[in-house]
């Protein structure tokens, strides 16, 4: 095993999990909802892309956009089922988290019942070609995954920085109560946020299925990894999540190279726990007291 190969793999995995991490982070900081149903959205979007590739066309654009769209639909569903009824109730945080878990329990079982336990694979979105830089051979899917996730992240960040809706979301992140006082609709913003973050999870599902398969429970690992990265980076901080994704990717690569594959999770969690013990609110830790409820 050479280090470059592992490093590139780590970067690719970090890109995919980074998308989920940023989604978790944005949802938490703007809505105060710990959404643990991204695992379900992930599988849901994967199946959406799969059905599109079978039924309509397996053109890459169709498949990718179908994944993104079903992800957004999944996000909107969860917003309507969890955030809208619960956001003004007592114990919102814990009940919201439990409700998203319940939805992921129901959702994965429905997917299992509808599509069966056999894993499905998506068509190759990025074709088959190779490029060689400094003796490192990069295949098309690797370059495609990195470029796609970076483009998606950039588009979302640009949208959040420059658009009216993005301004509303950022206002909700700073102080949800004050945002509602100045006339920002909490419910409508909830729908935007959940649709966008769902779309991110959907894209990551399509990207990850270039390497792995789609199954009803395939969203669990991305969810756990994404949540860990978001935690480590500090919930609510996009920069923190990006830094954390890079750190954890490098840890994974080094561990796999030096100690062996089965110790990857252990070292990762040791790193996360160390970071969290030093800075309890993650690397960024900017939202120290901003999101209490």
């Amino acid at each position: 095993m050479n280090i470059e190969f592992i490093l590139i793999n780590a970067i690719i995995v970090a890109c995919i999990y980074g998308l989920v991490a940023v989604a978790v982070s944005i949802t938490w900081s703007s809505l105060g909802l710990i959404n643990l149903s991204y695992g379900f959205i992930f599988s849901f979007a994967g199946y959406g892309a799969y059905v599109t590739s079978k039924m309509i066309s397996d053109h890459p654009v169709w498949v990718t956009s179908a994944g993104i769209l079903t992800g957004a639909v999944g996000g909107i569903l969860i917003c309507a089922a969890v955030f809208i009824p619960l956001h003004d109730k007592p114990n919102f945080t814990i009940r919201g988290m439990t409700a998203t878990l319940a939805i992921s329990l129901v959702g994965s079982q429905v997917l299992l019942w509808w599509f069966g336990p056999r894993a499905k694979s998506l068509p190759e979105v990025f074709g088959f070609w190779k490029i060689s830089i400094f003796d490192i051979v990069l295949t098309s899917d690797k370059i495609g995954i990195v470029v796609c996730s970076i483009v998606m992240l950039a588009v979302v960040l640009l949208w959040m920085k420059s658009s009216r809706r993005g301004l509303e979301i950022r206002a909700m992140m700073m102080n949800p109560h004050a945002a509602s006082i100045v006339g920002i609709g909490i419910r409508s913003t909830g729908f935007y946020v959940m649709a966008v973050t769902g779309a991110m999870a959907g894209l990551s599902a399509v990207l990850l299925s270039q390497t792995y398969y789609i199954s009803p429970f395939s969203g669990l690992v991305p969810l756990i990894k994404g949540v860990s990265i978001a935690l480590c980076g500090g919930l609510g901080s996009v920069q923190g999540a990006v830094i954390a994704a890079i750190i954890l990717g490098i840890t994974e690569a080094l561990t796999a190279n030096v100690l062996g594959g089965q110790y990857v999770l252990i070292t990762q969690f040791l790193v996360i726990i160390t970071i969290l013990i030093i800075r309890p609110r993650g690397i960024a830790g900017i939202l120290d007291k901003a999101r209490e409820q």
Partner: protein
Amino acid sequence: MSGQDDGKERYIWRNPLSVWLDQGGNDEVPTIRVPDPKTVWEKNTAYKVTTHKVGRFKYYHKWANHGERLWNRLRWWPTRRSVLLIRGLYNRKTLKAEKLIVDKRPIYWALALLFLALAPLGFPESLQNTLLTAGAIFGIFAAINVCWTLIIGTASIFSLASYAVVGVAAFLTSWLSINYGLPWWLLPPIGMVIGLVFGSIIAAPAMRLDGFYYALLTLGLNELCRVYFITSKEFGSASGGLYGADSYISDQWAPYTQSLAAYYGGFMLLVAALFLFRFINGKRLGRILRMAPEKREAFAEATGVDYRRARITIFLLTSVALGFIGGFYAAHYRGVTFSIFGFDTVLLGLAMLTIGGIGRAEGAVLGTLIVVMLDKVLVTLGPFRHILIGLIMLFVVLFLNNGLYGMKKQFRAWRDKKKGEWRSTRTEKGGEALPEEATEIDDKDELYHRRFDKMQRDYLKGLVCDEVIEEHRRKPLGQHSEALERLLLHFRRAPQVDKYAIHREGFGGPHKIVAFSGNRGTSPRLVEDREYATIEEAYHGVFMRRVNDLMES
């Protein structure tokens, strides 16, 4: 004003003074009959709420009592704790001595546990094996959940790694038992040591992290354990788990005896866990932490409560208990599978806690009962039973604040809110003081005056009609019919502040309406620019203003 068909009885009033020649009043005018003033009083004081015979009063059964029996309580030997919290009271009407059982939960617990203990006798033959197996699973999972609710509810540490502690203890004890031949009775104590060590490791981040950071971290830890045990060869990565540990259920027994032993083993474990819950939550540690609920830690700290220490102590004690359960699990099933670390296990466990209500032993037990019954007894439903459990969990989370056992409190809060809303819809505010205002006013005479005044005005409003106004217009002075007379008497009694008067600008000048300021030295103010040619017209103008003021009050 009012028309002709307004329900008022009309007649021609004749001036009784007219026989003594001209006394200044009208001789004959159409007017209305004056209703009985009592009707307004009765309408105002009537109780207008629809009442039902059922559910109007709280009903508690009162037991007969004798004065000295109250002190003769049943106590847990050798402590002075009474078995039942009983209050003695006297019936207000009959003055009989009565006893009220304030807290009936010990009775319900005793009955429920008795039911669980006797249940195997009543299982139907066809379902006997399924129900005994499910009962054993219920006992073990209920014990785990009771411990877990101590961590989440009492200690407010949102840990999702309870099943990981159980799993690690179970795996290590099974491995020791298989490789070194340890007997079954050594497994739980060894599990306790493992639980303590593992609990201390995961307690370290809990001191720094709070709330949901810790929850997400422990979710990751659970996954870490799963991946570690699945990939390591010593713990049976090939066979899906470890088998072959020593068990307290002997192979030589008949299958029914084995199932029965398993059932009662789980039951005893549950009882032990309930005792642990009682002794932590109901005693010093639990009381300390009831002082320091979430977001009020600073206050507790200021009063000298070391809540962090208490939380970590509970966490460690419970980890030891979870380790014990892990050892028991290994001795019960002769091993353990990887499913104990699964995300689904954590999810189902959380479903059990949420359905029953977090922070209560009865919630943990009831939630476990519901979920285990759905999961293990209705196996024929296939994957639908998980969907059903998820839907129940979603329903409970969406509509109940704290699970099934929080329903009573939530219902009472909702009922009180509705009571307040209904009362506010039927309260009329016409100058009368509302009950909550009335407590603020010291002069109670004022309250009665306002109440009387309001009813008086309600009554007089009913007297205003076209005939009465016309009667006044024709002759403002002199004898009037009863309706007009009552109105005028009320107007004359008005206080000096803002009382209307007629002002004439010099001899032969026009009449204008002014209002008194009420202060000596402050001149009256002009209320309108209109000028009246004669004094009678001005009298009528004042009357009309007063009628307007009355109708608007």
